[in-house]
């Protein structure tokens, strides 16, 4: 549960079913209903891609699908907004380099 808030003075966080997802081939903790970006953040992963022109690290910025900073390769599909994509069992997530590749 590292990186996840367990006790909060106002909110109750009830996590749904645990699902297995994979980042760069390694399993990370994720729960149904979470977005890919959320699960990665909980695991301390903030660099979600490297930019096409300058190769700079980029991560989550708006978290609501409006800035396209968090594009990743999800299940072989490049340029997917990781902040709007819910985790699914067996999902394979990769950092996107440049403009990504359709696998």
């Amino acid at each position, binding site marked *: 549960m590292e*990186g*996840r*808030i367990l*006790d*909060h*003075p*106002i*909110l109750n*966080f009830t*996590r749904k079913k645990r699902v297995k997802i994979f980042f760069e081939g390694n399993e990370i903790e994720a729960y149904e*209903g*979470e*977005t890919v970006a*959320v699960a990665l*953040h*909980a695991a301390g992963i*903030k*660099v*979600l891609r490297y*930019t096409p022109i300058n190769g*700079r*690290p*980029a*991560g*989550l*910025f*708006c*978290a*609501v*699908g*409006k*800035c396209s*900073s968090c594009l990743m390769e999800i299940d072989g599909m490049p340029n997917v907004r990781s*902040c*709007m994509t*819910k985790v699914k069992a067996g999902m394979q997530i990769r950092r996107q380099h440049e403009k990504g590749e359709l696998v």
Partner: protein
Amino acid sequence: MKEYDAVVIGGGPAGMAAAEVLGDQVKTLILDENDMLGGQLVKQTHKFFGDHAHYASTRGFEIANKFIDKIEKKPVDILTSSTVIGIYPQNTVAYVKDGHEDQVKYKKLIIATGAMERQLPFINSDLPGVYGAGAVQTLMNQYGIFPGKRFLIIGSGNIGLILAYQLAQTGVEVRAIVEALDKIGGYEVHANKAKRLGIPIFLKHTIIKAIGDESVQGAVIAEVDDKFNVIAGTEKEIVADTICISVGLMPITELAEQAKCKIVYIPELGGYVPVHDERMRTTNPDVFVAGDLSSIEEATTAMIEGKLAAMQIVEDVKKTDLEKEISNEIKTLAIFRSGPKSLKIRSGLEKMGIVTPQIEVPKFSPLPNSENGKLHAIIECTEEIPCNSCELACKFDAIKVGENINTPPVFDPLKCTGCAVCVTACPGLAIFMEKLDESPNATLGIPYEFLPLPKSNEKMWGMDRDGNYVCDLTVKRVVKNSNKTHIVYVELPKEFVDVVRHVTYPQKESPFVCRCEEITVDQIEKVIDSGITDFEEIKRITRVTMGPCGGKNCKMITLGIISRKTGIPISKLSHGTSRPPVKPVEFSAFLRGDKK
């Protein structure tokens, strides 16, 4: 293709309020990109200002839940996880759900797509760890994720102030709030909530640079002059792993543009906005706007705008007469906008031809706040905020706000029974309880929304309005409330009752003296304070200088503390006896004869 009387795009406060009105009246569809309705309300944990009809004193996510419950009971089609991608000719909305594009037709359309956060260009602003303030709220309040450990907030509007408080509630460190203007942007009560936690607000400062390679490790901030130019030489570094940008919002107008609504640039309303009349109709007679898309304001005004647009649509489609209801809503909206904080909005709307009469906010001379011997409220709310939560909460007529909800509350201590319901209701956490009598100690009640919740008889620290230590105090009792704003009653010296505004657990951080035995300055000072001032005694009690280094590193510091506390120069202090071995050696080194 499915056809609806009304299609609402966006399920935030404006869209939900519209759908609630439309639901019973006309065939309605509401579309939202997220997997549930609620918009930005779902990530708001603070209680909202307002009046009874607009969920005053209810937390944002609870407002969303109440709306959702109501809408789901109505014959409204709800499409969540549905991203509208365009408005086509012949009143057609195109959206994508589950990877497939689909289209619907509308007679009337309400676009309530809200706003997005303004960007702020600074060096490395693209580094992971720089977020919009809303993103941090999403991670923290919607998904229960810690986005970082040490935060820097840029912008002191309500969002920045609220975010600072919300972050502190999860136990992380908020290093500072940075504001380019010479005054705090948001409401005073929101600022006070952050300030009394000890969060500094740097006015006339801006961020120049984020520091870090793969993600944020810090930031450079600097002072700015009146023209917002950086004053050279004033740069300072702040250690932070997360930078939150909250420098305002701007309307998302693309869909309105595609729906052939005329767009104008009015900075007071947030930038580019669709031209609309006071019933929220745009230049396209079939298209309405509501909420932050029409002008950046509050959730309350968004709800009223949503309702207004919906009522007008019902009139259009069903030819029913709703003129009375509509003019009531227009009046309500005007009241919400009548305070001094809405001056900008009023002047922006005027440019569009919507004149909001400035309703006089009556000023009352405040009644005396305290009366001896009896537990009573103290209200610290002096700004004109559209809110009458305290008046609604008080069943004894001790608090008056009056017809214009922007009027600051007037409190009558003689009528106050000390029930403290107002303390838990106040969204600004600006009401405290006080009891003064002949005894040298006073009772103070403080609204408290942190973990762990203090217990009776616990010793805590009293902190002032800027978060500085004032005095030690004792918790007398804790009143738990279902709305999670609990009240901690403390006993403290009388002279501090008007100074203390927050309580915190004693902060135990103390520098280390001895790295081998992990002894702090605090621990040594405590022994000295108990009357033991001899170095050898202190050594035996604390184990300072007795670790593997043999005291090489900590002896001088320990002697320095003794000297400082007792006033005896180090030269006159005994400094113990040195014994071999002076370096760590293995026991086996001392074995003689047969090594077996």
